[in-house]
C-alpha cells in the first residue's frame, strides 16, 4: 500500500511540478503561437501515421511471433523488443546506418533515384515507428496467446478459409489487444525525441515535433517550454481518456 503510494507519487510529483511551476500567462500565447500549431500538427500527423504503419506491419509480425516456438520465437521476440530497451539516440544512429544516404537501404535508394530520407517528415515517421511499434506487437502477441483456439478451430471446421477465419474470428477477438497496443504505440510515438532528433534532425514544420520544440525552447525560453509541455500533456491525456472510455472500457 505504501509502496503503491510511493509509486504513484513518482508519477504524479513531476506532473504536479509542471503544473505548479507553469507560467499560466504563457500558456495562452504559446497555444496560439504559429510555431506551436505547426509543431503540434506535425506531432499528431507523425504519431498517427507511425501508429498506422505499426498496425499494418505489427499485426502480421505479432501473428508470426505468436505462432512460433522455441529458439526462433526467443530470437524474434528479442529483435522485436530491442527498440524498447535501446537508447533512442542509438536507435537513431542505427536508422542512419540503414536508411541514411550511405546506409544499407538508403545508399542504393539515394544513388539510383536521388532520394534522401533523412531530414524529411518521413524520417520522423520512421523513427517514431521504430521506437513505438514494439509496444503494439507485444500487446497483440499477448492477445493472440490468450485467445481460445477453439473459436478458430470451430470456424475452420465449418469450412471457413484461412483469411476468412482471421478477418471474421481472430481479428474481432483481438480488438481489445489491438486497441490497447495501438494507444500505447501512439503515446510512445507522440513523445519520441532521441531517435527523431538524431535521424530526422530538427526543422520547424518538417521534423520538429513537440518534444523537439520543447527541448529547443527549454534552452532559450524555459517558460515557453513548460507551456508547450503542458499542451502536449493535455492533448495526450484528453486522447487517452477519450479512447479509454470508448475502446478500452473495463472488461
Amino acid at each position, binding site marked *: 500500500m505504501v509502496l503503491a503510494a510511493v509509486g504513484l507519487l513518482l508519477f504524479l510529483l513531476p506532473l504536479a511540478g509542471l503544473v505548479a511551476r507553469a507560467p499560466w500567462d504563457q500558456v495562452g500565447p504559446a497555444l496560439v503561437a504559429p510555431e506551436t500549431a505547426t509543431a503540434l500538427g506535425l506531432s499528431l500527423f507523425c504519431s498517427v501515421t507511425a501508429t498506422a504503419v505499426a498496425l499494418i506491419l505489427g499485426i502480421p509480425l505479432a501473428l508470426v511471433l505468436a505462432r512460433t516456438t522455441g529458439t526462433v520465437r526467443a530470437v524474434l521476440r528479442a529483435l522485436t523488443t530491442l527498440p524498447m530497451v535501446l537508447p533512442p539516440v542509438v536507435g537513431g544512429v542505427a536508422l*542512419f546506418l540503414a536508411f*541514411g*544516404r*550511405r546506409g544499407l537501404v538508403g545508399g542504393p535508394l539515394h544513388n539510383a533515384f536521388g532520394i*534522401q530520407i*533523412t*531530414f524529411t517528415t518521413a524520417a520522423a515517421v520512421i523513427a517514431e515507428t521504430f521506437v513505438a511499434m514494439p509496444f503494439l506487437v507485444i500487446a497483440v502477441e499477448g492477445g493472440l496467446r490468450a485467445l481460445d483456439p477453439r473459436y478458430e478451430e470451430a470456424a475452420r471446421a465449418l469450412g471457413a478459409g484461412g483469411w476468412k477465419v482471421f478477418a471474421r474470428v481472430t481479428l474481432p477477438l483481438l480488438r481489445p489487444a489491438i486497441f490497447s497496443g495501438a494507444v500505447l504505440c501512439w503515446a510512445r510515438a507522440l513523445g519520441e525525441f532521441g531517435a527523431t*532528433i*538524431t535521424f*530526422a*534532425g*530538427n*526543422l*520547424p514544420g518538417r*521534423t520538429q515535433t513537440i518534444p523537439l520544440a520543447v*527541448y*529547443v525552447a*527549454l*534552452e*532559450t525560453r*524555459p517558460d515557453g517550454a513548460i507551456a508547450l509541455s503542458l499542451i502536449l500533456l493535455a492533448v495526450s491525456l484528453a486522447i487517452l481518456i477519450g479512447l479509454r472510455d470508448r475502446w478500452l472500457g473495463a472488461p
Partner: protein
Amino acid sequence: MIRWLATISLLIAAGCGGSHMDTGGNGMPAPSNLTVFAAASLQPAFDKVATQFKTQDNITTTFNYAGTQTLISQLTQGAQADVFASADVAHMTTAQNGGLIAGTPQVFVHNRLEIAVEKGNPRGIHALADLARPGLTIVLADPSVPAGRYAQQALAKAGVTVHPASLEPQVTGVLSKVTLGEADAGIVYVSDIVTSGKVDGIAIPDSQNVIADYPIARLSGAQNKTGADAFIKYVLSSQGQAILAGAGFERA
C-alpha cells in the same frame, strides 16, 4: 621546493577547512575534486587539460559538457559546480546577472567558424556562398545555441541565404551529420574540425567570420574555491593555452 609545496598545500587544506586532507608527505598538493561545467566544444581540449592539471595540482576534475544554454539551465536549477566555461560572452553575462558567478569572468580562448565538408570535399564547396546552391543538404546549429547564432551572423555578413535541412540543438549534431555523410556541409567551429579529423574544413574569410570568445569563471556556489581558481589559472597558463591551441582554439 618540496617543503614549500607541502606548506602551500597545507595552507590550501587549512583554507578549505578540509579536516581529512592528507598531503601524504610526497610533496603533492592534497587531492581534491573539482566540477567543471563546460561548453560542449571544449571537451577534447579540456579532457587533455584535466589530465595535465591532475598531474600538476593533484585535483581530479569532473566535467559536465553540454550546450552552453543547457548548462545555464542546469546551474539556474541549482546544479552544484565549481567552474563554468561558456562558449560565448552573452551566456556568461546571463549567468552573472543570475548571481551564479563569483569574480570577473576571463576570456581564455577564441574560436572561429569554418565550413565542415566531407573528406575530399566532393561537392566542391569553397565559400559560404556555395552553401546556397540548390541540391545541397546543409545542416546548421539552431540559432538558440552560440554556434547557430554565429553561423547566422556569418551568413548575413556574406549575404547568403541558406535553407538548412536541420537546425541542430548542439554543434556536435552538425558535425556528426556531415561525418556520417547525411549532410553535404555545415558550419561549425574550427576546433570541432581539428579535433574530429573526420571532416575537411573550408576557411571563412575574416570579413565574413565571427570570432567566438570563451569566458571562464568560478561559480558563486563553488565548494572547491581553491581548486576552481587553480583550474582557471592553469587554463590561462602557457601550458593550458598550448593544449587549447593544439585543439584548434586561438590563444586569448
